[in-house]
């Protein structure tokens, strides 16, 4: 993410630069998390800003969440179709689609879409405010930018992602049931039985939902940190947004592995 880099630097310098910039980003995100938590504990943030962000992030993201979830459900069934046909295991289609969707694909794809829609947008907004010196204006008016801008966005993103994941789980399973009926001729009732026959429990649902909260924290921290650290006019905003989506995506996958492993 460091500017220039690559072409002129030797491999070792590039490697060192990579680690330094990674450390700087992770440190910045950690520091920001600390400052956010102190405000959260004291309930010291702007409530109307929170409502506005919840509307802008949550409600306005609904269309892409719906489209993504329906298609994802369909894709899950198409991918499982050859296996179902090979073994004639129609009763297990619900289990297969349900386990894949609830534990992995639902939270993961929703997080990626929200990271693109909300996280990138958030960085762009904060970056623009930095570049046009609106943040400095806030400071000059003795308004803490963390209270006023960052904490509402943080809560907004985490809440949005959690609720979107709940929506996406339901819609993806609906999409999967219909795709199963359309492509394989598996009755929705059979699909539902496969889903609830005991192989899947509430634990699997919570597994996905816990992940969605973790992903939300990563997206929120990355987007706020890169937004606030923007420099260098319009191209700088573009670079910040680019860095946000890349770091969010990498963070999502790395944490996905760690969380899957930690909570089994």
């Amino acid at each position, binding site marked *: 993410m460091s500017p220039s880099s690559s072409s002129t630097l030797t491999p070792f310098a590039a490697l060192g630069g990579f680690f330094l910039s990674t450390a700087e980003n992770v440190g910045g995100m950690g520091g920001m998390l600390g400052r956010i938590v102190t405000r959260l504990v004291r309930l010291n943030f702007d409530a109307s800003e929170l*409502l*506005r962000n919840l*509307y*802008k992030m949550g409600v306005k993201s609904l269309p*892409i969440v719906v*489209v*993504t979830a329906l*298609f*994802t459900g*369909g*894709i899950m069934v*198409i*991918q499982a*179709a*050859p*296996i179902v*046909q090979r073994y004639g295991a129609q009763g297990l289609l619900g*289990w297969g689609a349900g*386990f894949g969707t609830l*534990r*992995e694909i639902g939270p993961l*794809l929703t997080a*990626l*879409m929200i*990271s*693109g*829609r909300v996280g*990138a*947008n958030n*960085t*762009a*907004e904060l*970056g*623009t*405010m930095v*570049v*046009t010196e609106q943040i400095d204006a806030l400071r000059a008016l003795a308004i803490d930018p963390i209270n006023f801008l960052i904490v509402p966005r943080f809560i907004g993103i985490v809440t949005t992602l959690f609720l979107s994941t709940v929506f996406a789980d339901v819609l993806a399973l609906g999409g999967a049931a219909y795709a199963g009926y359309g*492509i394989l001729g598996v009755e929705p009732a059979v699909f539902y039985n496969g889903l609830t026959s005991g*192989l899947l429990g509430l634990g699997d649902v919570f597994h996905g939902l816990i992940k969605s909260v973790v992903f939300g924290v990563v997206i929120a921290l990355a987007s706020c940190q890169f937004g606030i650290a923007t420099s260098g*006019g*319009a*191209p*700088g*905003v*573009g*670079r*910040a*947004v*680019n860095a946000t*989506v*890349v770091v969010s*995506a*990498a963070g999502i*996958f*790395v944490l*996905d*592995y760690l969380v*899957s*492993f930690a909570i*089994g």
Partner: protein
Amino acid sequence: MTTEQHASSSVGNIDEDAYVKAPTGLAALGAGALEFVVAGRMLYSVFVKTLYYTVRGVRRPGAIAQQMYEIGNRSMVFLFVVMGFIGMILVYQAGIQTKRVVPDLSLLGATFLELLVRDLAASIGALMLATRVGAGIAAEIGSMVVTEQVDALRMCAADPVDYLLKPRFIASIVMTTVLITLAAGVAFGTGMWTGYAFFDINPRTFVNMSMVDAGDLTVGLTKCIAYGAAIPVVSGYCGLTTFGGSEGVGWATTRAVVNSSLSVIILNFFISGAGFLVFGG
């Protein structure tokens, strides 16, 4: 209503500025549909122009090579890290789930390889490239639009689609295919390690190509090419339609990421469906 006005006044959100007279109810639906149709037609014309210039345009191999480096080499580490983790996650989750039903995990590797070749490598890899490459293309072209460099190109009688988008289009198709093929190898390797470490599956058992057939390969490669073509066209379109300063660049980048990710998911649905109908089980 008040919240939206507040939004546009305090932050100057472009999306809402464009519709200050916020249409309600049926009008909002109609406005959305109209916008969708117009965007679709413009996207289509950008795509056709790109194809035309790919055949007839000015040949500049240097620009293509540079874009290949930007899109390919510089995404490699990111893509390999992500796909490596994906391989571990998928084998871990699949192993746990399969053990609930059948104790025999000897076919896990074969099934994993089939899924990887047919879908997961291409689709998840392309989603990652859509964020990395799509955001990069939109930010770069968007900045050029905002700083009037694209207008300067037009003044010099160089079509921005030919000059900017075509090299990225060709480079993206080639490099997406290459990157995804390599990334699939990485994912399979980490998956094999996970199978060995957590489920005691011998790597010799895990590496089992019996389930991969010509149909799987065809579908997988079709996806690579389709995604490789879709990402630069969608994000280039988003970049070229940028307006309104640094904020506009941010918005263009956001739209590029969202739209190219959506196009990957939707293309995946249709190509997978077609592949299933053509090649069967």
